């Protein structure tokens, strides 16, 4: 006979349950009455030329009622769901050892997989690689979900892959899988940072544990960036394309508010997408923005000023508001809560919200920062021209090397030594204030505030080098407060 291990794995398949066979026959006879509904056939590729039928998922291995419920939850993901289901096959049959599902954020990867697992009641465990900070947690979670707490407690203190696979095999030989077991790994790109053997081992877990188990990896990074140098078991790749604008409209419209009509909400979503779609296609983010701004949209209607149907007026009302939201909420400069509060007060505070303009600095520090900015963006050889009182008639052309193609504002700040900073500082402060010893402590507090960065200076310990880390807008604002026209002193703007 075969090797013993071989027999073990065959066991569940051999004992093909009689009940299933008959129920399938019954199912078939029943179907004879009505013309057969076409099984969901999945065109490959996807993308723009998708031609799918909006239909129900169908598979002889699963309860029809359940599949109907599943289909209802997976609008706009019919093709992918159909393909995934057909690959999974009947529960008691083997599924491909590893599937890799990739697609942009919020393209429904987790949603589809979770709906399948939960509603079809498949034996599974979902593991987020963000939460599972150590492999021990991962192993424990898998063993507990498949074989109960007792199995998980067999793991030693800091378990190795070897321990995990040994215990898994031992447990699964006692209770072999009657249905495919699924391990779903969310944010699988993080597996690359884990133990180097973890990913290759998971990909061929079916071979290693000799059980009907399948690993589903979900990620927004393409598979090519996962493959180890010496190769590994290649998973089956499934792509979840982004939702089109129409699909986003359809999904978002289902969240309608109970006290307003569906059309009203749908027209709101349409306006929202008009503003955000060019920059953001993330369903999750759009949904958040939609919920946050809906009350503002309703305001004129609630106040009786505008009718629900008057889309143009509603658009005029909401559009500037949404544009503001793009600057603040979308960029996370304010939290959703703050945004709601700001809406209540509707103060003019929104204008200059680019957060850091509110930083208050001591008078000297402002000049230090200005000096640092100049030192970072002007070539050192031009300092004479800008800062020497009586430089005579040195013309700009004298030091213009116009073979310098790109401006310093494109290349970013250059590091400068402390003495240069001080030299520039004294000339821009002019004689208005006498320098004091507190200068050095102010420099270090600018570094702490991350307005200056200390560039590593390992080779010359005596002269530290700095870089200015603020933008032109920021330094212009600072300069204005001390009546210093910085643009006049910038080489790029001569």
């Amino acid at each position, binding site marked *: *006979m075969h*090797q013993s291990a071989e027999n073990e*794995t065959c066991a569940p*398949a*051999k004992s*093909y349950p009689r009940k299933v*066979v008959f129920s*399938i026959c019954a199912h*078939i006879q029943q179907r*004879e009455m009505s013309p*057969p509904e*076409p*099984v969901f*056939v999945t065109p*490959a*590729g996807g*993308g723009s030329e998708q*031609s799918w039928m909006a239909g129900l998922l169908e598979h*002889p291995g699963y309860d029809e009622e359940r599949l109907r419920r599943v289909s209802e939850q997976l609008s706009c993901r019919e093709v992918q769901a159909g*393909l995934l289901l*057909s*690959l999974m*096959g*009947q529960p008691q*049959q*083997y599924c*491909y*050892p590893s599937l890799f599902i*990739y*697609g*942009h954020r919020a393209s429904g990867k987790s949603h589809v997989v979770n709906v399948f697992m939960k509603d079809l009641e498949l034996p599974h465990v979902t593991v987020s690689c963000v939460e599972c900070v150590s492999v021990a947690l991962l192993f424990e979670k898998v063993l507990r979900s498949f074989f109960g707490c007792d199995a998980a407690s067999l793991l030693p203190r800091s378990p*190795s892959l*070897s321990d995990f*696979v040994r215990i898994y095999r031992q447990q699964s030989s006692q209770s072999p899988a009657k249905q495919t077991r699924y391990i779903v790994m969310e944010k699988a790109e993080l597996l690359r940072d884990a133990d180097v*053997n973890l990913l290759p081992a998971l990909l061929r877990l079916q071979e*290693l544990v000799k059980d009907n188990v399948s690993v589903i990896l979900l990620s927004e*990074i*393409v*598979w*090519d*960036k996962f493959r180890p140098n010496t*190769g590994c*078991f*290649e998973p089956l*790749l499934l792509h979840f*394309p982004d939702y089109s604008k129409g699909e986003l409209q359809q999904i978002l419209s289902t969240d309608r508010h109970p006290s307003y009509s569906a059309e009203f909400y749908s027209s709101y979503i349409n306006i929202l997408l008009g503003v955000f*779609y*060019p*920059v953001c*296609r993330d369903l999750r983010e759009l949904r958040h923005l939609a919920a946050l701004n809906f009350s503002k949209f309703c305001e004129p209607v609630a106040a009786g000023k505008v009718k629900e149907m008057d889309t143009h007026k509603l658009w005029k009302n909401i559009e500037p508001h949404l544009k503001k939201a793009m*600057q603040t909420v*979308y*960029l996370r*400069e304010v939290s959703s809560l703050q945004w709601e509060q700001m809406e209540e007060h509707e103060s003019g505070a929104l204008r200059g919200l680019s957060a850091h303009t509110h930083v208050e600095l001591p008078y000297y520090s402002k000049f230090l920062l200005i000096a640092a900015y100049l030192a970072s963006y002007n070539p050192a050889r031009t300092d004479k021209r800008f800062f020497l009182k009586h430089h005579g008639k040195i013309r700009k052309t004298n030091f213009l090397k116009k073979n310098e193609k*790109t401006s310093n504002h*494109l*290349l*970013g700040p250059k590091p400068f030594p402390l003495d240069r900073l001080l030299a520039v500082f004294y000339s821009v402060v002019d004689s208005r204030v006498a320098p004091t010893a507190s200068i050095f402590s102010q420099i270090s507090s600018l570094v702490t505030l991350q307005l200056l*960065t200390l*560039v590593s200076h390992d080779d010359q310990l005596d002269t530290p080098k700095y870089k200015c880390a603020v933008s032109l807008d920021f330094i212009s604002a600072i300069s204005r407060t001390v009546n210093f026209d910085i643009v006049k002193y910038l080489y790029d703007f001569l």
Partner: protein
Amino acid sequence: MGVLTCAAAITYKPLQRVFFRQPIRGDLQSKAEVVISDSAELPRKSRHFHHNTFRFFHTIMSKRKAKDAHLPIGECINQVHQILRKRFCHQQLPDKPEGLEAQHKHLVELLKRTAVHGESNSVLIVGPRGAGKTMLLRSVLRDLSEETEVQKNLLQVHLNGLLQTDDRIALKEITRQLHLENVVGDRVFGSFAENLGFLLDALKKGDRSSSRPVLFVLDEFDLFAHHKNQTLLYNLFDVSQSAQAPLAVVGLTCRLDVLELLEKRVKSRFSHRQIHLLSTLTFSHYLDRVRAQLSLPDGFPDGKFVEEWNAAVTTLCEDKSVVEVLQRHYNSSKDFRSLHMLLMLCLSRVSVAKPAITPADLLDASRLCVADAKANMLHGLSILELCLIIAMKHLNDVYEGEPFNLQMVHNEFKKFLQRKSSSLYNFEQPVIMKAFEHLQQLELIRPADSSSAKTQREYQLMRLMLDHGQIMEALQKYPQCPTDIKQWAMSAFA
């Protein structure tokens, strides 16, 4: 789609299978009488399957003979999935490793000498991923286990470089697999060699005159070479050379340069025997292989169905478009595993409503397999993100692939915007920054050097990880790509 129409055209009767006689597709019908491929090319029916069939008849078909049996179509499809999924997913051993007869014979003889005559030996099986190294070894062990003398004598230890990640773990696993945990108990050993020697000693036969032969299988052999001092390898090879105990070491690896990984003292103890699995398959053999892999075994419960299925498979493999697709696959890889992936995708689309694999299935499956994942991801970028990519492409052309930063990209983008009157894409810098970061998160752009973490984000130097063709393809597929953007992109390709 053709597939759908053919599914709908079938009027479905359960116990009479009419599919192949119906004009499903012209090509199928015209060749319905084609003889199944040479029986020699078909995998012979496996013992396991025979057993399964046997039970099956008793339960369902009472005492009819296999060849005349008629099963409901649903049941046949079920069986098709059951059998082929095992072949494609699960590591079902083929009856005979195809095309590896010489290697098989060589290995059998080698191991027999250890098992029967107590000769020590070491050998490496080297071949690319999915070439059948594991399968070859397992089938050799299966065949050997049929000889009572071998079965009685030979002990086996299976290690895997993915699991036993250091020698301490490996030693524990060896002890466990030799069932010597109790014998070892709490004993402490001075060295690895001492410990291994003790284990091998403990295996001595009753009269203690000779040890029982032990087979060590090291899958992913190259990984063991990374263990500290290569202690395990050194000791195993040392024992196998010094005839302390009869020991066969079989290493499996996909690295051709594996010997260069071995330290000198390890290498000198290795027998330098290698078995290579390098495929010299011709395309016509490859086609035969595809046919054989898709064909059902003779032992299938419903003789009529098998005949039709196998005939359809033969027809399929003669279809011109199919041959073309397979040729492309053959050119990229000839191993079984990537073939199985392709066939698995085809199989998943076989259902009661469509009980055969059509050329369209194979074309779609192949499209899925070769799809460019990066192009897929580009499809889902927002317009803004796409614009940034185009700007990067321009920069790459101008500066001949030098890395760029966000400021430069933004500047390039602004140049484009200035040429247009509309302000549709005028986004604030922070919004652009967020888009830029998203591209980085998707790993479509990458920091040029890792040390630049300290510089401001907008000045961090980046590289584009996409090539010309990918951007080109993305632009063509991009849904509703504005013409001005397309033109702007094209100017970079001029």
